[in-house]
């Protein structure tokens, strides 16, 4: 290693690194290597380079909150009884003593009131679940907006989408377990969702519940799905996600010395391992403080599940809110055909829509590369503004999601804002279609404006804030060139290449008509890049530089200089 460590903290090495006789650690390592061949496997990976940027930490939050979920979850399983057998509560919590309830609910109360640290672990588990899903979503947005999903990482994007889907289902099965009034209402609604599926719905419901709702099988079945099936899948997919991350090496932001061919950053050992390991303790610690200070899901206030009761303001956990919103604003449409009923008002928003959204999500990388025709590998991240259509597409999807999410709280909004729930619902029915379109258009133009701003900075420098008065009495602001490295970073991006369908010419020189799909692709590609600002050429930058030199010498006639250089582009 040719790193200069001459000045690195002396505490790191109080004595010279000479080959000492093998100590105990050394002999253990030797023992292991003779059996596992660790030397070869670790040779490169111990000092593997990871680039640094705050946004690369978002996925780490998801990873570490998953570890917290495993740890706190194991603790909870030691006391939780996944049974719907009826017992009479005799624990510490006065308000429910003597009341019949399921063993699942009674053991949840036992964990909360009779196991020291039990409530803490329950609340940590729930908060970590919120954090897990939230950080996966934010991580997903980071990956999308920076173009990190592009070749060769498309499959890791698909794995990530699956993780989000499974994480959501894991959350639903988890908060359904305590068998309190709120979670029971959620399960009852889920039964209604299942029954809306044409042909097989009723059977699905009877098989899952072991008979008619509520039966006595749903809690034990959700339990095994929650503690074994989905966590197993999550673990496997997370392992695959991380292995692909290591294999592809992390993406990095462009900058001086950072190219498509290299990766610049800190080595795994010691810096990255320390930072990531330390960050695990931070995430763990924050969940512990949240579990201690912020009440979440106080099931003792809701009481045991009773199929004839419900509370106002019943809502699922926030990540289930958007399909719930779709369910709320969907008009009540039902078809009766040949003695059968299709409940479109349930089936479309809660079964079809989430499936469709996750399919669109997983397909985004393939959709983009098909439209753009870009088959190159990409390891340098793109700023969102430099891919206006991509950015606008995700903002449109976010708007759709956000409006549905708000619709899921239409009753709360109505109460808090003293608004009519009918008006909110009618508004949302229109807004979920119009909002994304507006968001798309605004975002796209916004990105292009930012690109123009970048171009201005490259060609005309930055605004110094110095106002100059010319001899004629005109005022102008002085611009100065940005630094070489800043200018390089701004220009370190790909040129946009519009896909042009090839016309095949046969041996007689007659051009075959372009296929319909290919023509569509060409059109979409043109639209995808339409109005994007391309980076200036070397000549344009040289010319701009001459202007500056001239300006700095002359110091006047700035206005004319600006005007002439503005006409260079566009």
């Amino acid at each position, binding site marked *: 290693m*040719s790193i*200069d*460590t001459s000045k690195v*903290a*002396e505490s790191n090495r109080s004595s010279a690194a000479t080959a000492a006789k093998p100590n105990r650690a050394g002999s253990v390592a030797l023992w292991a290597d003779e059996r596992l061949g660790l030397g070869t496997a670790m040779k490169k990976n111990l000092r593997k*380079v990871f680039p640094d940027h705050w946004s690369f930490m978002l996925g780490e939050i998801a990873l570490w909150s998953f570890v917290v979920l495993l740890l706190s979850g194991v603790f909870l399983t030691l006391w939780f009884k996944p049974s719907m057998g009826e017992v009479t509560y005799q624990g*510490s919590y006065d308000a429910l003593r003597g009341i019949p309830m399921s063993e699942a609910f009674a053991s949840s109360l036992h964990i909360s*009131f009779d196991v*020291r640290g039990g*409530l803490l672990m329950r*609340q940590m588990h729930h908060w970590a679940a919120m954090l897990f899903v939230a950080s996966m979503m934010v991580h997903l947005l980071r990956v999308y907006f920076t173009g990190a999903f592009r070749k*060769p990482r498309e499959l890791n994007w698909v794995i990530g989408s699956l993780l989000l889907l499974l994480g959501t289902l894991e959350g639903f099965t988890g908060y359904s377990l305590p068998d309190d009034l709120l979670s029971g209402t959620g399960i009852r609604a889920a039964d*209604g969702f299942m029954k*809306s599926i044409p042909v097989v719905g009723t*059977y699905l419901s*009877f098989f899952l519940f*072991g*008979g*008619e709702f*509520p039966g006595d*099988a749903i809690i034990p079945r959700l339990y095994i799905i929650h503690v074994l099936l989905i966590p197993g899948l999550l673990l496997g997919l997370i392992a695959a996600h991380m292995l692909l991350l290591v294999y592809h090496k992390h993406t990095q932001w462009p900058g*001086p*010395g950072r*190219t498509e*061919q*290299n990766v*610049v*950053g*800190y080595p795994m050992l010691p*810096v990255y391992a*320390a930072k990531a390991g330390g*960050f*695990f303790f*931070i995430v763990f*610690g*924050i*969940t*512990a*403080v*949240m579990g*201690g200070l912020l*009440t979440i899901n106080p099931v003792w206030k809701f009481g045991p599940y*009773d199929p*004839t*009761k*419900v509370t106002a303001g*019943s809502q699922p956990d926030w990540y289930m809110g958007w399909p719930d919103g779709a*369910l*709320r604003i969907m008009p*009540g449409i*039902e078809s*009766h055909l040949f003695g059968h*009923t*299709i*409940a479109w*008002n*349930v089936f479309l928003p809660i079964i079809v829509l989430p499936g469709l959204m996750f399919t669109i999500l997983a397909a985004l990388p393939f959709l983009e590369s098909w439209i753009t025709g870009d088959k190159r590998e990409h390891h340098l991240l793109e700023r969102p503004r430099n891919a206006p259509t991509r950015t606008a597409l995700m903002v449109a999807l976010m708007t759709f999601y956000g409006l549905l999410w708000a619709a899921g709280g239409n009753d709360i909004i109505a109460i808090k804002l003293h608004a009519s729930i009918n008006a909110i619902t009618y508004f949302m029915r229109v807004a979920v279609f119009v909002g994304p379109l507006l968001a798309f258009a605004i975002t796209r133009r916004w990105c292009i404006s930012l690109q123009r701003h970048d171009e201005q900075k490259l060609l005309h420098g930055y605004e110094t804030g110095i106002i100059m008065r010319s001899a004629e009495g005109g005022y102008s602001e002085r611009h100065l060139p940005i630094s070489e490295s800043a200018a*390089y970073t701004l220009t370190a991006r790909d040129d946009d290449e519009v896909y042009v369908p090839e016309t095949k010419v046969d041996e007689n020189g007659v051009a075959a008509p372009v296929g319909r799909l290919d023509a569509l692709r060409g059109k979409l590609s043109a639209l995808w890049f339409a109005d994007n600002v391309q*980076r200036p050429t070397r000549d*344009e930058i040289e010319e701009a530089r001459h202007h500056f030199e001239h300006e700095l010498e002359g110091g006047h006639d700035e206005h004319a200089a600006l005007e002439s250089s503005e006409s260079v582009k566009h």
Partner: protein
Amino acid sequence: MSDQHLPEHVSGDDAGSDLEPIRDPGLPEHQWRPTDVDPKAEKRAERQVAILFGLSALSTFLFLVSYFTFKVGDEWDSSLGLGVSNVALGGTFGAALLFIGAGIIQWARKLMADHEMVEMRHPAASSEEDREATLAALQAGLEESGIARRPLIRNSLIGSVALLGAPAVVLLRDLGPLPGDKLKHTVWKPNMRLVRDVVGTPIKASDIEIGDLINGAPEALFPTEENGYPEIEGVELQAEKAKGAIIVVRIEPDELQPGRGRENWDVDGIVCYSKICTHVGCPISLYERTTHHVLCPCHQSTFDLADSARVIFGPAARPLPQLPLGVDDEGYLIARSDFLEPVGPSFWERDSKDIGNQGEADV
């Protein structure tokens, strides 16, 4: 480790960079941190890290003290309703973890070498030779198995393995009973009394004032020796409760607009509907007496109880099923039949003809 060599000031002469508008100025020079060059700063950082670790140990000790000092259960709502034990355990445990995290990160930032390293990337694809070697190996393996030359073996294997899917599916058959007509009937029977849902006492028609809403249940769910209904408990009770729940309201008789064929289903303006929402099955609950509207708190479907529980707002597609009412000799409300249509959310097998006389109210 030649590929990790750090070229300071690479003057961007890799392929293609001539086409770039600006030459790559190369990695900026490494800057030494105060802790690298000032022994005092270095010692101070070392002390800071150790103090953070020490504070963590102290927090862990306080955690143990809290564990054995504070009671749970009895004092569950002390400390702003959070429970003193929970606050103390969460606070100290969180602090213990955060201090360790902060200490390690401080160590990494201030004292570990902060040279950025450069590693070269390799294409994700395998090399052409590897690809060919793999294909050749695969070809050889397939060749030696003779799978292509012996379609009889191949096809019979595919067929028999595919058939193994059948046990996998069939084995799940006993997950639950078939639906049968369970969803189409409830425990309600002619002459069964309506009772209050919590205490199980019968409801006298004369006791209900105009504007009242009573949450009711079938008397069969409260068996006594007197009424003679069979014992019901556990799963069966829950299932019947989930289907049989009703709401009883009394509406000014002139405001009532009975559906076709339902003219005599009320008792002096007292009408009874299923409490289970026809959307996804939540129990509806919020009643506005001036408008006779009842709202489901889950998804805000709103039904007009004066008008056959017609949907006037929200995602539900069907009115709440109505229970035809009568009065027995003692003046208590009774059902004159079961619901004439399935209660609760829609399902595939539900036939709109099930509704019988209520069919018209459906449209």
